[in-house]
């Protein structure tokens, strides 16, 4: 693990978060989901974020995944301030530089596995045949080379999450942000998915940010943070 630490320490800063706050209006009540987060993430890291429900984990992931912007503080992604970026910039970043993986897999139910991967490439100027080729290639890499034309409803949870991983990788992202990727999977499938994700990170392809309460997942991480009440309660670098 020293090797990993050494590797990431020298790498460029991917994210810089300063005093990040995020408030929501939940009905009439205002919910303070994040109460001042300062965090740096370097390229190539595997960061695990733990914490109970409602600790602000998912909110933090949304900010990191450029799905949302903070109500206070700044989120810099490769030097670019996401908190001030426009809709178009955020869309581009989501499309080309960040892959997001959901706990519920979030596949389009009407599309086959291959099509689910391909639609991620739709906003880019990529030909249909290239899209299909790349989708098939990615699905083979996640072990679903035989199931290209299966609808999500005909795939197991683990297989669906593999399709989601393939989709996240479609546009060669620098970061994969995964929100409890194994939360809906049994132990065996969870291990398979985790191996896949960690393998991607350790191969140096991507930076991996995973929210989880699975200690097994956290064990893979180069750095762990624990969230509580919208704050980082514990910050540990795995030695």
């Amino acid at each position, binding site marked *: 693990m020293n090797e990993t630490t050494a590797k990431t320490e020298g790498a460029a800063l991917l994210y810089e978060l300063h005093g990040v706050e995020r408030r929501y209006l939940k009905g009439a009540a205002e919910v303070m989901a994040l109460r001042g987060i300062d965090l740096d993430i370097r390229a190539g890291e595997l960061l695990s974020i733990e914490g109970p429900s409602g600790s602000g984990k998912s909110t933090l992931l949304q900010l990191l995944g450029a799905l949302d912007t903070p109500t206070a503080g700044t989120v810099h992604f490769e030097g670019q301030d996401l908190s001030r970026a426009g809709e178009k910039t955020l869309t581009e970043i989501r*499309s080309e530089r960040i892959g997001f993986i*959901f706990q519920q897999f979030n596949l*389009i139910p009407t599309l086959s596995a291959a099509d689910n991967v391909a639609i991620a490439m739709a906003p880019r100027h990529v030909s249909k045949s290239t899209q299909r080729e790349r989708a098939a290639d990615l699905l083979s890499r996640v072990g679903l080379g035989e199931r290209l034309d299966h609808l999500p409803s005909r795939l197991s949870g683990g297989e669906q999450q593999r399709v989601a991983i393939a989709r996240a990788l479609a546009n060669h992202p620098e970061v994969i942000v995964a929100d409890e990727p194994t939360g809906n999977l049994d132990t065996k499938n969870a291990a398979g998915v985790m191996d896949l994700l960690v393998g991607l990170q350790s191969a140096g392809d991507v930076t991996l940010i995973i929210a989880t309460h699975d200690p097994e997942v956290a064990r893979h991480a180069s750095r762990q943070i624990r969230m509580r009440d919208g704050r980082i309660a514990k910050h540990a670098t795995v030695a």
Partner: protein
Amino acid sequence: MISVGYLGKELRRRWSRTLVTALGLAAGVGLVMGIMGVSNGLTAAQNQALSPLSTVGTDVIVTRTVAPASASSSTASPSASPSASTRQPQGGGGFFGPGAGGSSRGGAANQINDLNATDQAALLNANSSILTDLSKLGPAGTAFTHDFFVPGTLITFPDAAVQDVAKVEGVQSAVPGLSLQALRESGTVPALTDTVTTGGQTLTAVARPAPLTDAEQAQVRACIQASGEFTPPAPGSGTRGSGGFPRTGGANSAFTKCLPERYQQYEAQVVVPEQTITRILNPPQTDTQSKTYTVAGVNPSDKTTGLITVDQVVSGSWFTSKPANEILVNTAYASTNGIKAGQTLAINGSNYTVVGLVTPTLTGNISDIYFDLNTLQAVSTNANRVNEVLVKVTKSSNVDAVAAAIQKQLPGAQVLTAKSLANQVTGSLANAQSLANTLGGALAIIILLAAFLIAALLTMSSVAKRVREIGTLRAIGWSRGRVVRQIMAETVGIGIIGAVVGVVVGLGVCGAVDAFGPTLNATTSGLNVGASTVNLFHQSSAASVSQNIHMQALLNPQIVLIGIAAALVGGVIAGTFGGWRASRLAPASALRDLG
């Protein structure tokens, strides 16, 4: 810019939603096409009802009717411009004719009222010739039949107007017509007079001669004294006057003899001479029967245009080269009265041969009997006068312009186009037409709006169910615009399906209307020769003509295109609502837990 594969799979795999939305649009489109088809069919039916007019080639009819009191609403109102006719008191004459002494064509504005009054006076005058001079029909007891011809509400005018109309640009031909109301009176000439004998009585008259003067009294006294028979009253009693004298009596004969001459004869008997006085009975008691019908005069040389044409002769033939004693009879009138081609009718002492039976136009002026124009002019004492000009224009698209030009050329004319006559079609066809136009239009709009609303609501609901899917698309890098376009494309796709199904539904609706539609009735009243102003008459038997037409729904390419367009518009509207809803979804909604 949209993912076609995704679109197709979305529509196919969510087929129930696709189908329900598309069927909603299709039902709307189909019904609207049905309504439009029916409306179109009714228009066609009306055109069919009016088609005889177009086959005659009469595009414009110029007449002169009494200006209505409130004439401003009518474009063809004679009062729109007072004409020389206001100066012409007799027989509704002088109408727009420069020949009849109408030197000034324009008039002061205050002549408008005069015009109406003049019109009405002329009309009454023309129609009053009907008041029969029974004395001219022969001695009492003579059976008579006499036909009177009056212009009804269509005032006659000099036939020079025909040439005036013919000169208007765009007029191909102008043909005269004279449509009259005929009243046949038959009966026995009544006793118009009786005699009374007076006189022969002996009358006693009492006279009162002037009192005696003093000189006369002295004379009388002297006379009596001379006779010695009577002692006169004391002198100075002159105030008693003449009344004091005894009236009669032989005893006083001397007195009597002494009276002045005028007193000698003041009693006399008068015998009134006997006289026989002839009285005119007012009103005479008659057994006269009246029957009305309508007649028209046509120019026999105008075979293909005018009130009737050679095409409309259904039996017999057109007028021959000697038309003076020939008539054509309306088939309806002929069948009512048992008249056949070839027979002879006696009218006012002349015999007319029925050379043929005609079925005249449904519109325009329908008459029972058609005469040679010259004959009718002579019979009805309307020499060189007509009351209609039937105009054919060179280009049918010009009808309105030519009508306006004629109106300008002949102020005071009532210029009717075939189109304006169409508005006079009554009966269930007209009712259905107006129903289709008003209620049908509103219904079509309501149906379409309902279909659009249903499609929009279904799309909104679909978007609401797909919040996470849409959020996911946004999260994996789809822009807001791309998501909206995709949603729009889906609903437009549904609209296309709706259009296809809707056209099929529309064809079905129209087919059902054709199969089960009712039969409609069209009645045209023509120009109403015998209308209200002269109540002596009833409506002529043939003045209005009815026709039965099967209700049809006629589809044409425009209606099909409108239906298709409506379905697509419905898709776009639904997509707009759905897209608007989707555009408000944040990428983070991909993480929303929908349970």
